[in-house]
């Protein structure tokens, strides 16, 4: 801990085991109680600006470079925005293949979040030595579980590599479809992984349930508040990740907007900027910035859907929903982790279902057209939440304007509030203790934020926490 002087501020810098780099400031009021907490993102890359002037057909390949963890999500959202601009109906086989790619993305990203980033907290404890609370510590604790997690992530990456030609930054999806169909060999290679993947995910769910039980006294402090929830649902209200419309639900289970076409997203959401962060702060427009805080991602998706589309995941969703009681949504951010494991189960089951579809090995995978609309929106569910790509073009398809609404930004307000709640519970005096630092990190990791995506920025994640007094002086500062 760095004592800068005898002033009154806490800094956590860097936040570890998240995708990017962040700083957290906790401000105390005149009575020494937590008044506010801010999750600062200090990176900027400017994809929205430098993509202006490029051709719409280039955008999937360009925007898949935003992130090394979820490039396939940007690829698909971008290709869908292109579909919208071409006003084209893509071949059914192309949609099936895009779905498989997205599920590969989910599996690898969720496995990374669960096994690599969060399991050290769960299995070694929030108060374990940070030097060993990592992959190697997990290795000593449960080698076989870790091995299975590494292989599960590899399965997701294999799906992407098999379809897209490489594990990251594939340009395989295009406006109008995808570049290549799936061969019999590729189909068999993916199918061969399924039994092992399903067994691993089921084991992960069991572990997650025991973690929920083990930490039941601490969990109520991890981002436990009512918020709005946003995500895509299918036409029948069931769980959706590729198509469908936007559903907005409040923290008591009331539906505020339903099956809104993604191209009308700007009618629902407003994005505001803050001086202290490059991460935008979106909110539900009808409720304003304060009341319009919403969450996206696994917790939101499981809250808003009426049912999952696969049997094992649906059975697990019902168990998940019991955490909320009869009417309300599950409002505790810690249960993002549980929701994430259920989504991994869904993904494995859904890949199995899609591989059995009679058209999955069809050869017609791309439709072609010229510019038929001057703007287009592509939306899909990225691992961390709903992702929107919105392009405006001229008659030649040259981008005039680009807006990317990213999951981590949409969780921005909720992450701030989660940190505030944890600080209020664990801040003891005027110092950033190990216990507080560990729990703030764990609280942020519930959302699995990806700062490369959210600011479209590069960098390695680290945590920097600052504790400030009411007059802005620094009480304490800590970096990890």
């Amino acid at each position, binding site marked *: 801990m760095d004592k800068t002087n005898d002033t009154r501020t806490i800094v956590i810098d860097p936040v570890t085991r998240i995708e990017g780099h962040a700083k957290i400031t906790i401000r105390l009021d005149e009575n020494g109680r937590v008044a506010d907490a801010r999750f600062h993102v200090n990176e900027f890359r400017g994809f929205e600006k430098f993509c202006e002037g490029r051709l719409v057909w280039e955008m999937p390949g360009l925007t898949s470079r935003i992130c090394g963890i979820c490039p396939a999500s940007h690829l698909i959202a971008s290709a869908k925005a292109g579909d919208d601009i071409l006003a084209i109906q893509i071949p059914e086989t192309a949609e099936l293949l895009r779905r498989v790619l997205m599920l590969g993305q989910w599996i690898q990203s969720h496995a*990374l979040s669960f096994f*690599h980033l969060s399991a050290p907290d769960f299995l070694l404890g929030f108060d374990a030595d940070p030097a060993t609370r*990592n*992959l190697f510590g997990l290795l000593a604790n449960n*080698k076989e579980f870790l091995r299975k997690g*590494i292989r599960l992530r590899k399965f997701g990456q294999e799906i992407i590599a098999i379809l897209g030609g490489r594990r990251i930054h594939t340009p395989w999806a295009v406006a109008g479809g995808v570049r290549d169909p799936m061969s019999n060999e590729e189909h068999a290679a993916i199918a061969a992984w399924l039994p092992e993947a399903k067994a691993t995910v089921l084991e992960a769910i069991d572990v997650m349930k025991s973690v929920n039980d083990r930490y039941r006294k601490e969990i109520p402090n991890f981002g436990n508040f009512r918020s709005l929830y946003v995500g895509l649902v299918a036409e029948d209200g069931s769980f959706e990740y590729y198509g469908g419309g936007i559903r907005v639900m409040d923290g008591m289970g009331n539906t505020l907007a339903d099956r809104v076409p993604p191209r009308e997203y700007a009618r629902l959401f407003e994005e505001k900027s803050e001086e202290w962060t490059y991460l935008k702060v979106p909110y539900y427009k009808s409720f304003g910035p304060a009341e319009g805080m919403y969450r996206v991602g696994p917790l939101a998706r499981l809250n808003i859907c009426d049912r999952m589309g696969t049997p094992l995941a649906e059975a697990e969703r019902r168990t998940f929903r019991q955490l909320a009681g009869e009417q309300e949504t599950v409002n505790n951010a810690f249960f993002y982790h549980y929701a994430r494991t259920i989504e991994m189960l869904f993904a494995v089951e859904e890949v199995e279902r899609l591989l059995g579809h009679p058209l999955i090995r069809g050869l017609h995978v791309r439709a072609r057209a010229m510019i038929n609309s001057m703007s287009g929106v592509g939306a899909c569910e990225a691992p961390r939440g709903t992702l929107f790509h919105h392009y405006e073009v001229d008659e030649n398809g040259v981008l005039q304007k680009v807006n990317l609404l990213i999951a981590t930004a949409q969780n921005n307000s909720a992450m701030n509030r989660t940190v505030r709640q944890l600080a209020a519970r664990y801040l003891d005096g005027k110092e950033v203790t190990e216990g507080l630092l560990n729990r703030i990190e764990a609280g942020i990791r519930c959302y699995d934020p990806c700062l490369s995506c959210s600011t479209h920025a590069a960098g390695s994640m680290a945590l920097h926490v600052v504790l400030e007094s009411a007059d802005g002086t620094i009480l304490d500062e800590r970096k990890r």
Partner: protein
Amino acid sequence: MTPTTLIIGIGNELRGDDGAGPATARCLRELYPQADVMVVQQLTPDLVESVGSHDTVIFVDAAAGADHALIRQVIASRDRTAHGSHLMTPGQLLSLVDALDGRAPRNAFETAIPAQTFEHGAVLSSHAQKGIVEGVEAVCRLINEQQTPV
């Protein structure tokens, strides 16, 4: 079972000389078609199976500030503080392989390719190009001297 060699070229080919590792690995693929060759942007835990299933592993990576290509033997690292999700050193990866499977490669080498600039773009500096030639020659010598089967 026939002994096997894995060559891993590490680097981002859109960041100037950082692409020197992948470029060197691709040259070696032409020279040794029996070897397994991978190109990755960084070392990550999911490579444990590939690394653990080969007798010899040769990592090839750009080295800022180096004047000449250099090969050194690499052993499993004792540093276990890494976060381990995005970025690992060859030594940490070997350590993970060893701990998970107890069957780390018999021989592992790290080849440093001289690099100067890491700006955006797929262009290699003349310094890196010269280093790639040196690196390829050095790996060829290693394979011959060690009688490393490929």
